[in-house]
């Protein structure tokens, strides 16, 4: 048996290799490169080993931002996923209102991130913003630029407003894919609405919900623009999430080594948690 050799095949693969190299491999390796070196002016580099990784892992500042990031991500997941499912359940499944509802739902998703941040910043200003002014007029002492609690409230509300639609649309897609026969069978079997949700709708939505959780997890864990425009990480450091902190270190202080090390750790955390989510949600699929 002779194996046909055809070196021309490489030519066909080349464009993809180049694309992947320039958009993923080379940038990532640059970061790896920075993370193990000390940088001085004039582009002089010295080998630093794992010092930056040790520094980052032992740094209180990193722990604090990571903690805030976790609180933020899990809060918005805990709100957006159930809320999204709930809204999807109430959307009409047939009729002229379907496209209207879907377009209205999709609107927040179409707004650029920095515009969302700017909108909410103005919306929440205590002296002129509708939300800020309104809350104060109702007797709440609300000022998101001074009180950390208020800043968090605004930040989470903004994210819920911006991204719940995504969960709604995904859950809705799962819901409409359920054939009528399932609902009819459940009716005949005498199932109450909770049983229908628990045994028909939820299982059928499982795959899309897994995707929704993963997308929302990864996106919210990397969130930068909106909190940066809304609060800039303040007041103090109270809303400084991981990416905001990372940019402060990398571009504000120009500490390339620590910033690179932090990026890699950040990346590994996202990878690890995504894997955990996926495994947990899919563990019953196999059998």
């Amino acid at each position: 048996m002779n194996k046909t050799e055809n070196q021309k095949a490489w030519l066909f693969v080349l464009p993809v290799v180049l694309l992947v190299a320039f958009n993923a491999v080379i940038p990532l390796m640059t970061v790896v490169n920075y993370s193990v070196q000390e940088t001085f002016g004039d582009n002089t580099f010295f080998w630093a080993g794992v010092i930056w990784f040790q520094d980052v892992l032992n740094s209180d500042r990193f722990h604090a931002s990571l903690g805030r990031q976790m609180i933020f991500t899990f809060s918005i997941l805990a709100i957006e996923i159930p809320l999204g499912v709930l809204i999807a359940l109430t959307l009409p499944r047939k009729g002229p209102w379907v496209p209207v509802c879907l377009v209205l739902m999709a609107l927040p998703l179409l707004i650029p991130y920095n515009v969302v941040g700017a909108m909410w910043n103005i919306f929440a200003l205590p002296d002129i913003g509708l939300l800020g002014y309104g809350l104060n007029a109702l007797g709440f002492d609300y000022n998101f630029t001074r009180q950390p609690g208020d800043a968090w409230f605004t930040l989470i509300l903004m994210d819920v407003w911006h991204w719940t639609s995504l969960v709604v649309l995904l859950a809705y897609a799962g819901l409409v894919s359920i054939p009528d026969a399932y609902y009819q069978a459940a009716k005949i079997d005498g199932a109450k609405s909770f049983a229908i949700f628990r045994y028909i709708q939820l299982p059928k939505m499982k795959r899309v919900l897994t995707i929704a959780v993963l997308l929302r997890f990864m996106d919210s864990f990397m969130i930068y623009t909106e909190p940066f425009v809304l609060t800039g990480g303040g007041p103090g450091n109270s809303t400084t999430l991981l990416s905001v902190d990372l940019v402060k270190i990398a571009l504000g202080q120009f500490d390339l080594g620590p910033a690179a090390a932090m990026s890699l750790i950040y990346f590994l955390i996202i990878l690890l948690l995504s894997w955990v989510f996926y495994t947990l949600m899919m563990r019953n699929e196999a059998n």
Partner: protein
Amino acid sequence: MAKITLKGLRHSYKPDPQEDADYALQQLDVDWEDGGAYALLGPSGCGKTTLLNIISGLLTPSHGQVIFGDKDVTQLPPDQRHIAQVFQFPVVYDTMTVYDNLAFPLRNRGVPEAEVDKRVREIAEMIDLTATLDNRASGLTADGKQKISLGRGLVRTDVNVIMFDEPLTVIDPHLKWQLRSKLKELHQRVRTTMIYVTHDQTEALTFADKVVVMKDGQVVQIGTPVELFERPQHTFVGHFIGSPGMNVMPCEVRGGKAFYQDTEISSWNAASCTDASDLELGVRPEFVEFGPTGVPVEVAKVSDAGRFRIVDTRKGDQSIKLLVPEGGEIPEGNAFLQFAQDHTQVYRDGWLMS
């Protein structure tokens, strides 16, 4: 258990039906005896699923009544009618085990757990699912899932009727036979009224004691498989049931005798005809044979169907098919056909003359 009566039933999916064409289901009066095995047979879009959904309560008819026993259930929802239904595509609760699937309708009705266990095991035995009781329902094959659907109906003791909406559509051909005979066997055992909707004549004729043939929202004939075969009330029934279907040809009746292309044909009901137009003659290929005299035709095509051959003969653009048993002789070119008098009937506007 109860007798099911459909009285003056009509249904339209349009909110304001004006003419007959707006109705998916035309005027319908049918009695279904308690414990019978019925089949609803008809081509796609003839209204059989509509009728099924009306009986099950998934649909409320525009006019008429659905009566179970002596109780009018027209306005009752499905769960209060005590019915069960097996759908075209298997419906199982994926996350549950087979056992929980079968127990589901009982648990929803608050039946004590000991009773549930007893019933589930009994029914699982009946439908051969005992070995897989603890497996997840999603892992079963299509025929296993259909058995679960059926089982969910059988576990309940209050079921008036079990309905099947083309349940074998997604089953592999070699399993269809098995499942069909299983169904027949189960019916004889539990004696619950069963209504089986299908467009497949073999399924209908083998399953049912009585077949209801539908066309364009109308019931054209209700009868035993033999009646449908020997005395089709409508040319549609003759055509739809049987393979190949009944020969239908234009004819004239003069003085109580039927003529086809000026050849006299002896027909058992020709004497009852007085009018001479819009008449058709129907005879099944099984009751046509070659003879020394009769209708002159030309043999056009012979196809071998195993135990017999289907001969297609022509005269002009009119075709008449007949079956010739194995070993029978088939003339070439010109020939004469003879029809069995007892099975040759005259139809007017499609309906049998009587």
